[in-house]
């Protein structure tokens, strides 16, 4: 009886249009953010912060980016990792070449670079759709990584394009330990997730979905296909770009272009398939799942099978489990974990009276 919608009548459209119209949800989200912002940095150990929480947050952001393009606007992309790379190298160069560049501005500018490049590679989407576009995004994937390796200026003439992220400093405070880096990541990701949620529930989001669901009808209503698709490419790449910058600055530290390879793009795609295509919440769930799964396999498989297994067995098992899960989710729950979460909530709404 705790989770109820009954009795909460909405007196205005404004109330009806809130992100979380049900009071308990609002409280829940506040508690969740409070937990991750206050309790976690106090109690989580270094390993959890560095190897799990920070990457989950960063990949959630990238997954939101891909979800905007693929889940909301219906344009399949296999090049998300390349846009992360643009963001990372963009931010690096702004930090490197402009004295006194504030860190937050640098990652936003990195994101803007990614958005620009995204728009360029999004241009073909005006004439081609579906699989054709997916192949076009592969062009972005391979070309961008190549360019970042070959054009040495981007990595300040280091060998094979490796860059080392500079020290983060905001208003004189140096972000060194995992705690502070985690909090910084959390702040950026939560803010951007909120903005994403705002976009997808407004005219922008409705236009994206209209183009996704039926582009001819969208055009007939007066939605400009070109503008709508390119906006989706820009916003999506911006999100991936900022995620890439965070990846370099608060997670890995030293990155090379080859690190942003096709495999990483697939991983992000898997996050949205498993988490939920067309769901901001699902982006978080999917990212957590895909980050945690290999770790769980690494820990539990040897535990169950003992010394029988080699590490290559585990890595092949990973491929099989990933592939199998993708097919499984597409068949059984195409809306992913986000949908399961919703079903769970609906059950809860009836609890403790199942009828």
């Amino acid at each position, binding site marked *: 009886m705790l989770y109820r919608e009954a009795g909460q009548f909405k007196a205005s459209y404004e109330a009806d249009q809130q992100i979380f119209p049900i009071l308990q949800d609002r409280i829940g989200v506040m508690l969740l953010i409070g937990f991750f912002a206050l309790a976690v940095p106090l109690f989580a150990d270094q390993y959890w912060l560095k190897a799990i929480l920070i990457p989950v947050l960063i990949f959630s952001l990238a997954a939101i980016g891909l979800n905007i393009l693929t889940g909301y606007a219906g344009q399949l992309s296999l090049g998300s990792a390349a846009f992360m790379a643009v963001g990372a190298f963009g931010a690096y160069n702004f930090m490197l070449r402009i004295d006194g560049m504030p860190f937050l501005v640098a990652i936003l500018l990195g994101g803007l670079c990614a958005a620009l490049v995204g728009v360029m590679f999004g241009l073909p989407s005006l004439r081609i759709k579906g699989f054709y576009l997916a192949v*076009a995004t592969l062009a972005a994937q391979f070309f961008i990584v190549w360019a970042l*390796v*070959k*054009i040495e200026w981007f990595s300040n003439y280091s060998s094979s394009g490796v860059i080392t992220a500079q020290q983060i400093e905001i208003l004189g405070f140096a972000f060194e330990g995992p705690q502070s880096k985690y909090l910084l990541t959390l702040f950026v990701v939560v803010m951007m997730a909120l903005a994403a949620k705002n976009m997808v529930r407004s005219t922008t989001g409705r236009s994206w979905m209209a183009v996704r669901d039926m582009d001819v009808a969208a055009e007939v209503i007066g939605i400009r296909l070109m503008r709508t698709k390119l906006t989706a490419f820009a916003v999506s790449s911006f999100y991936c770009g900022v995620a890439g910058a965070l990846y370099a600055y608060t997670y890995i530290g030293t990155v090379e272009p080859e690190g942003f390879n096709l495999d990483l793009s697939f991983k992000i795609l898997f996050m949205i398939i498993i988490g939920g295509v067309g769901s901001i919440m699902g982006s978080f769930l999917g990212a957590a799942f895909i980050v945690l799964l290999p770790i769980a396999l690494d820990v539990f498989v040897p535990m169950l099978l003992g010394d029988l297994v080699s590490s290559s067995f585990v890595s092949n098992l990973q491929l099989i489990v*990933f592939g199998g899960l993708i*097919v499984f989710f597409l068949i059984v729950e195409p809306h992913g974990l986000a949908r399961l979460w919703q079903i769970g909530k609906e059950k809860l709404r009836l609890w403790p009276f199942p009828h």
Partner: protein
Amino acid sequence: MQFFFEVLIGGLLSGVLYALVALGFVLIYKASGVFNFAQGAMVFFAALTFVGFLEVLPGWTGMEEGGRAVFWLAFVLSLAAMVVLAIATEKFVLRPLVNQPPITLFMATIGLTFLVEGIAQGIWGANVRGLDLGIADVPIEYMMDNFNILISSFDVFAAAVAAVLVAALALFFQYTRIGRALRAVADDHQAALSIGIPLRHIWVIVWAVAGFVALVAGMIWGARNGVQFALTFTALKALPVLILGGFTSVPGAIVGGLIIGASEKLAEVYVGPFVGGGIESWFPYILALGFLLIRPEGLFGEKHIDRV
């Protein structure tokens, strides 16, 4: 000029291999409307299974290592494996997803790619293996003497195999009952049903045929560059080939393959040095992209206006 021709011919021959992968793709797309991203993984799977059997069969059966009997037994067993893969794919992936949007099926084949790669390496291990088909990889003397051009006999063999394969498929589609059914299903599912072959069987057959094409492509490719995971990346270049040639056109796959193969090698040799090299990794994609902007329907595709 000789050098130009050598590069061109080398490119055309690698294009033959792209064309073979693309061919498997086109077959599946025509018959089931599925954009099979896993075709490259199938090539890898087939090649790995083949060399795997070559390795283990002498031990199991006491046959002479490297002998003709082992070769053919391994070939037949690999083919059987591809048929099993086709059946499993139909049963566990395609059938449950029937009537889903094409993009869902496409993503499912990405999942299938990982699955197939994992299974292949799980069974046979991940180390790089050489494959010797017993065809000499030496320059043809005649061409050397008369035109001073270096062409490997192996490459000519590969091209010949590809040509035979394409011809055989053409005959198969033209003159067998199943072939006609497959063509019919590409045009109209209802019509195919009236021929009396269940759609499911048609899918299995076409995936098996694509598996066969993958096996041939994998063997040739493996013999040239070794059987290794990198094969899956090279196989990805079949995608720009398809864009060039159109998803539904067999001649398109072949012409597209040749164009991509030749142009990427020429570009690498003549443009590469000015930009730091390694442009083969992206050139086919950018070429295909540029081409799309001019002719979205591909070389041989028809212009299509959405019906509303």
